[in-house]
């Protein structure tokens, strides 16, 4: 069935009764639920679509007599709002009540389709000409300080006299001078755990092999000898980079414990419990005749089995 159009004549079973002056939509189904019939000057009536028998191009036929329509209560405009005053999406999508189309002339100059395509492509070309040359500088700009060479200098961290007991982790705090880009040189507080190891612990730690340390090019810069009794562990937990501590555990005894995700390591740095993927990272260490401890401050990527040095 066609949709009733505005200005269409309305005919009852006995006579013409007026014309369609408004249509009313159901906000849920988006269908026309009523038409409003303007009865040639004698008021408006709201007529249910159920009373409509047929809709032709200019004519809406009802299957009721005119007396029945006249008997309906007058249409109450205040019970409704126009579709401009309310936000119901797609309300007019399935609607065809406007008689005909409303048109504006299409300018003559716009009728050349080829030229429009050219201009569209031209816009894209200009866009690329602007975008491509700037993309690389932007990328380089925001990447500037991401990679830095390793610092293999020795740092003094304290005196071994601080260590009171064998096989017990002792924390040495030290300040590392850091010069970052344009910033003034700053002292960054860091810490390293140092152990005076008994021979069993040394054996367990070194497993009869000296430990080599490399620079960025893979060259050996230092070797921790397996008979040297001091072991230094980087203060950074190999799980996710928190700082671990030396703690008494109720079943495992004295251990290195990371408070973040509860990784637990024994005095040799081996994993006892928790989520860590590898043992603690040992650092190059040397001790002077007067007992001054020096280390090379290295950091390794956390969360992976292999040691990958990042500073």
């Amino acid at each position: 069935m066609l949709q009733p159009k505005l200005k269409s004549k309305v005919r009852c079973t006995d006579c013409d009764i007026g014309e369609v002056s408004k249509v009313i939509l159901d906000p849920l189904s988006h269908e026309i639920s009523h038409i409003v019939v303007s009865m040639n000057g004698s008021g408006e009536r709201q007529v249910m679509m159920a009373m409509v028998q047929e809709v032709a191009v200019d004519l809406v036929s009802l299957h009721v007599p005119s007396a029945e329509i006249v008997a309906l209560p007058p249409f109450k405009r205040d019970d409704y709002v126009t579709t401009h005053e309310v936000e119901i999406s797609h309300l007019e999508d399935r609607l065809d009540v406007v008689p005909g189309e409303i048109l504006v002339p299409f300018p003559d100059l716009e009728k050349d389709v080829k030229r429009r395509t050219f201009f569209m492509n031209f816009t894209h070309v200009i866009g690329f000409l602007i975008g491509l040359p700037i993309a690389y500088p932007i990328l380089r700009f925001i990447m500037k300080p991401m990679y830095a060479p390793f610092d293999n200098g020795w740092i003094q961290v304290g005196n071994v006299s601080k260590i009171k007991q064998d096989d017990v982790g002792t924390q040495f705090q030290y300040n590392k001078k850091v010069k970052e880009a344009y910033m003034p040189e700053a002292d960054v507080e860091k810490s390293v755990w140092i152990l005076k190891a008994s021979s069993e612990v040394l054996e367990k730690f070194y497993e009869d092999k000296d430990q080599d340390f490399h620079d960025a090019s893979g060259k050996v810069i230092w070797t921790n000898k397996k008979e040297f009794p001091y072991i230094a562990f980087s203060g950074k937990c190999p799980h996710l980079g928190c700082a671990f501590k030396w703690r008494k555990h109720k079943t495992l005894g004295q251990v290195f414990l990371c408070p973040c995700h509860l990784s637990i390591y024994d005095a040799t740095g081996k994993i006892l419990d928790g989520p860590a993927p590898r043992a603690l990272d040992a650092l190059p260490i040397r001790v002077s005749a007067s007992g001054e401890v020096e280390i090379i401050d290295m950091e390794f990527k956390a969360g992976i089995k292999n040691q990958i040095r990042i500073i």
Partner: protein
Amino acid sequence: MQQPTVSNEPSTTIEKIVDFLDARVGLKEIQAKMLNEPIPGGSRWAYVFGSILLFIFGMQALTGILLMFYYVPTADHAYASTQYIIHDVDYGWFLLGYHFWGSSAMVVCVIAHMSQVFLWGAYKPPRELLWLVGLALFGIVIGFGFTGYLLPWDQRAYWATTVGVEMVDKVPLFGDFLARFLKGGPTPGQMTLSRFFVIHVMILPAALMALAGLHLFLFRVAAPAGPFQGTPEEIKAKTDYFFPRQIWKDMVGMAAVFLTICGLAFWEPVVLLEEATPDPGEYHPEPEWYFLFYFQLLRLKMFAGEFGQFMGAVALPVLFMALLVALPFFDKDPERNIFKRPVALISWIFIMAVIAIFTVSSVINREFLD
């Protein structure tokens, strides 16, 4: 809206100004369109969270801009300038506290908003795009939280960032690049602070405003979903407009959130820890409370080792988000009643239970660390 019956001559100055603007920009029609949005089945308290989130964002923007009057994003001044805001600037403690607790409120309301949409089945066709943009907004809110708490440059800030960035590092192939990009170098420092600052105050707000605008637009195009049960007649009979009943409920909700945040800012003021350094001293690093469950989750044995690490830090959150993204595309059953969607209901209860249990257990775990 009543149809203007007689064209009254404007009398007061305000009416004249309104008429002047109305004639040029169609003010009254815009207002009518904004306010006259039918809400199928009528206004509800369950629908307040979207408006509340918009309100919280507005307040975060306001307090955030104010904080920038004094805050300096440099490694040597960030901590001191934040302390200055807290201790010396008039009402600095309040505005900073409001911004701090506002972020928590944002997370709570985002979870509530997402839960409501999920339980009501409102993500289902034709509202898939609305749901997707909502998920992007959820990501932005998490990004705000993560970048925001580095800015005071205290111990909490430093360790949350260290751990968070190490997790990003676990992304296959690009992880190292992403982590270095975020840090602006091999370790957290000035470049990290600069980057997080720009992301927090420029990139994320711009992204949030754009996507929230799109979210609202898509919401208006798709129209509210309405209740998940009831016949069309019942729903139609209870339908009202956005204004006044829903707006009233939204306003009450906003007032409650505002008072709660003010109360928290007043009774639980922000106290900075020691200034950030790679040596935490006696401090046990811990993230913000809304990340605690995840922090505790990463302590599980099942996430141990390199592969477990990848599963916990990367695969789990990515899979979870992917599942949420895919949700409206594989859940095509038009049934919206949550009591007739047992899998959805059980999943939601399960996720909430995991969050609750792991949050509580991380709090209990604190005792064993001291």
